[in-house]
C-alpha cells in the first residue's frame, strides 16, 4: 500500500503530468472566482481535453481543477458577498462583514490557510480509508456490484430534495439512454434510429455539456452583467489571518473532519458540509454574539470543510462507483472515458493511480494557495469581466467539446438536444445529476446484471450481501419519499398560517 502511495507520487513528478496539473489549477482558480460558471459545468467542458491523455495526466488536470475551485470561490464570498461556488456560501456570513470592517485581508488569509489544512486533511482521510475498505471492495461479485450501482442511483435520486420520484425516474431514464447503441452481447442495434453515429452510444461529453454547461450559459446570458462593478483595492493582513488558523487549529481540524465525513455521504456534498462546519464553529465558540458580524471562526470553519470534502467524496465514487454529487458523477464519466472502472480494479491494477489522487489534491491546493497569496487582488479583478466576453468563450468550449471526441456533426446536435433537455429540466424542476449518473452508470449496470444472470440465474438476488444492499436501497428510497411528504406538509402548514395571519391583519385594518 505504501509502495502504491510512493508510486502515485512518482507518477505525478514528470513535466507532462505536472503541466496538466498546473493547467487544472489555473482553470480551477478562474472557475471558482466566476460565479456564472460552476465546477460541474467547467468539469464537463474539460472532459474532451482528456481523450488523448494518459489517465494520470487526465486526472491530474480534472482533480486539481476541482480541488482548487473552492479556494477562489471563497474570495468572492469574502470580498463582495457573492459566493463563487455554492460550497462557499457560508463564508459570506462572517467573511463579508469582515471586509466591510476593513479586515478583508485577514479574512482571506484565514480562508486560504484553512483551505490548505482542510485539503491535506481530506487527502489523508482518503489515503487512510483505502487500505481499510480494500478487502471489502475486492470481495464484491457482479450481483453486488449491480446492486451497488442501483444504490448509488437511489442515493442521488432520493436526495434530490422534495423531488425523489422525479430524481429516481431521471436516473432510470439515464440508464435507458445508456442502452442506445450496439448491444455488447448480441451486436443488435438498440434505439439507434438508423444512425451510424449512435452505434457507439451517446457521448458522455455531449450529455455532460448539454445538461450542465448550456443551462449555466443561458443563466449567465440572462443575468448579463459582471458580478462586481469595481475591483477591490489593496488587501493587507493575510499573515494575521493565517496566524488565526494556527491559533484555532483544533477548530480547523474538527471542521476538516466534518467536511470529509459529509463529503463521503452520497448526496450531501460541500454545500451541506460548510453549513455543518459553520454551525460547529458557532457552537464551540464561547462568545456567540460575534457571529454574523465578522467572527474569524465563522470563516475558518467553512473554509476548512470546503476543501476537505474532495478527499471524502472520492471514496464512494472511486471505490464503489457511488458518486456523492454532480461533480463526482461527471468525474465518474471521465473515468469511463479513460477506460477505468470504479470498484475492485481501482484497488488492484490501478492502485497507484488511485493513490495519485491523494497527492493531486495536496499538491493542487499547495500550488493554488501559493498562487492566490500574492495574486489575490488581481484574481479578484476577474469578477469585473463582463458576460459579453465570457459567453462566447464558453460557447466555443461547448462546441469544441461536442466535436472533439468523435468529430461527428451528430455529436454537436446531440449536445444541443441535451442542452434543451437540461434547460427544460431546470425550468420544470427536475434534478439533472441523476440523469447524468444514470447515463454514466448504465453501461456498467447492464454488464454487471448480464454477468450475474448468466452465471447464477436469478439466485444472486438471494445472496445475503445483495439482499442487504437492496434493502438499503429501499430504505433510501422510502426515506426520500417520506422526507418529501414531511417537507410538503410543513410548507403547506406554513402557507396556511401565513394566510391566516394575512387575513387577521386585513381584518385588523
Amino acid at each position, binding site marked *: 500500500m505504501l509502495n502504491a502511495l510512493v508510486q502515485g507520487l512518482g507518477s505525478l513528478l514528470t513535466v507532462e503530468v505536472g503541466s496538466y496539473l498546473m493547467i487544472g489549477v489555473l482553470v480551477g482558480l478562474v472557475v471558482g472566482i466566476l460565479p456564472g460558471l460552476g465546477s460541474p459545468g467547467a468539469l464537463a467542458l474539460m472532459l474532451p*481535453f482528456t481523450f*488523448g491523455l494518459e489517465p494520470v495526466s487526465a486526472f491530474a488536470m480534472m482533480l486539481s481543477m476541482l480541488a482548487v475551485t473552492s479556494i477562489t470561490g471563497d474570495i468572492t464570498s469574502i470580498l463582495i458577498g457573492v459566493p463563487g461556488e455554492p460550497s462557499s456560501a457560508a463564508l459570506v456570513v462572517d467573511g463579508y462583514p469582515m471586509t466591510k470592517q476593513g479586515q478583508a485581508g485577514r479574512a482571506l488569509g484565514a480562508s486560504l490557510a484553512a483551505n490548505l489544512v482542510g485539503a491535506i486533511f481530506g487527502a489523508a482521510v482518503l489515503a487512510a480509508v483505502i487500505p481499510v475498505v480494500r478487502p471489502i471492495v475486492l470481495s464484491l461479485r457482479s450481483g453486488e456490484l449491480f446492486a451497488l450501482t442501483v444504490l448509488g442511483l437511489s442515493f442521488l435520486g432520493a436526495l434530490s430534495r422534495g423531488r425523489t*420520484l*422525479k430524481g*429516481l*425516474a431521471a436516473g*432510470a*431514464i439515464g*440508464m*435507458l439512454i445508456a*442502452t442506445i447503441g450496439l*448491444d455488447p*452481447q*448480441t451486436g*443488435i442495434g*438498440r*434505439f439507434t434510429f438508423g444512425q451510424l453515429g449512435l452505434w457507439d452510444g451517446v457521448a458522455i461529453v455531449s450529455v455532460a455539456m448539454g445538461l450542465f454547461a*448550456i443551462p449555466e*450559459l*443561458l443563466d449567465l*446570458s*440572462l443575468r*448579463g452583467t459582471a458580478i462586481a462593478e469595481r475591483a477591490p483595492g489593496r488587501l493587507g493582513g493575510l499573515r494575521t489571518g493565517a496566524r488565526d488558523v494556527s491559533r484555532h487549529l483544533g477548530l480547523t481540524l474538527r471542521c476538516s473532519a466534518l467536511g470529509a465525513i459529509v463529503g463521503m455521504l452520497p448526496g450531501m456534498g460541500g454545500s451541506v458540509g460548510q453549513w455543518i462546519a459553520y454551525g460547529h464553529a458557532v457552537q464551540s465558540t464561547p462568545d456567540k454574539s460575534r457571529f454574523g458580524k465578522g467572527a474569524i471562526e465563522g470563516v475558518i470553519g467553512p473554509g476548512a470543510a470546503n476543501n476537505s470534502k474532495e478527499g471524502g467524496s472520492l471514496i464512494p465514487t472511486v471505490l464503489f462507483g457511488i458518486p456523492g454529487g454532480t461533480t463526482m458523477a461527471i468525474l465518474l464519466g471521465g473515468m469511463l472515458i479513460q477506460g477505468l472502472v470504479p470498484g475492485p480494479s481501482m484497488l488492484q491494477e490501478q492502485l497507484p493511480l488511485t493513490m495519485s489522487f491523494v497527492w493531486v489534491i495536496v499538491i493542487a491546493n499547495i500550488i493554488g494557495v501559493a498562487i492566490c497569496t500574492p495574486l489575490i487582488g488581481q484574481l479578484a479583478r476577474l469578477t469585473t469581466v*463582463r*458576460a*459579453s*466576453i465570457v*459567453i*462566447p*468563450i464558453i*460557447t*466555443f468550449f461547448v*462546441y*469544441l467539446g461536442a*466535436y*472533439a471526441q468523435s*468529430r461527428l*456533426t451528430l455529436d*454537436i*446536435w446531440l*449536445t*444541443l438536444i441535451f*442542452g434543451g433537455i437540461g434547460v*427544460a429540466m431546470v425550468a*420544470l*424542476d*427536475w434534478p439533472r445529476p441523476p440523469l447524468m449518473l444514470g447515463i454514466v452508470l*448504465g453501461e456498467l*449496470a*447492464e454488464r454487471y*446484471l*448480464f454477468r450475474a*444472470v448468466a452465471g447464477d440465474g436469478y439466485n444472486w438476488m438471494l445472496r445475503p450481501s445483495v439482499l442487504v444492499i437492496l434493502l438499503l436501497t429501499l430504505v433510501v428510497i422510502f426515506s426520500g419519499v417520506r422526507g418529501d411528504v414531511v417537507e*410538503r406538509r410543513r*410548507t*403547506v402548514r406554513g*402557507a*396556511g398560517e401565513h*394566510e391566516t395571519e394575512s387575513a387577521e391583519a386585513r381584518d385588523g385594518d
Partner: protein
Amino acid sequence: MTARPDRWKRGLLLKELVPALILLVIATWALQTANSWPSRASLFPRWISLAIIVLLSAHLLASVWRARPAGNTPTEPAARTAVDISVDLVGKLRQIMEFTVYFVAFGAAVVILGLATGAGLTSLLYTRFVHRESWLLSVLVSLSMVGLIWLLDAVFGLRFRLGLFY
C-alpha cells in the same frame, strides 16, 4: 379569492403532468421495442423501461393527489401585478430567444464554416450586436478565440473541423 389558487394548481398540475405523460409514452414505446429483441439484448432495457413506467405512474398519482381541491397550495407565488409579470416575461423571453438563436447559429457556423472561422465570426457578431460592445473589444474577443484555437491545437493536438467548403 379562491379562483387564483385553483388556477395556480391547474398550472402546477400541467407543469408536472405533461412532461411525465410524454416520458411515459416514450418508456412504453421503449418497452415494446425492447420486447422485439432477443432476450439477452432486451433484458436490461426491459427492466429499466418497467422501472421508469412504475416511477412515472407514481409521480403522476402523487401530482394529481397534491392538486386535489382540498388543502392549501404550498408554492403559490407572492402576489405581483400583471404589468410586472408581463414586462418580466417579455424581457426574459426576448433574452432567451436571443441566446437560442446565437447558440444554434454558433453550431451551424462551426459545421458550415469550420471551428476557427465559425467561432470567430459568430463571437464578433454576438459581442458587437447583442451586447453592443465596441468594435475594438468585439474584434479582440473574436481574435483571441482564433488564437485560443491555435493554442489548443498546438498543446492538445486536436484536429479541428474545417467546414463544408474545404
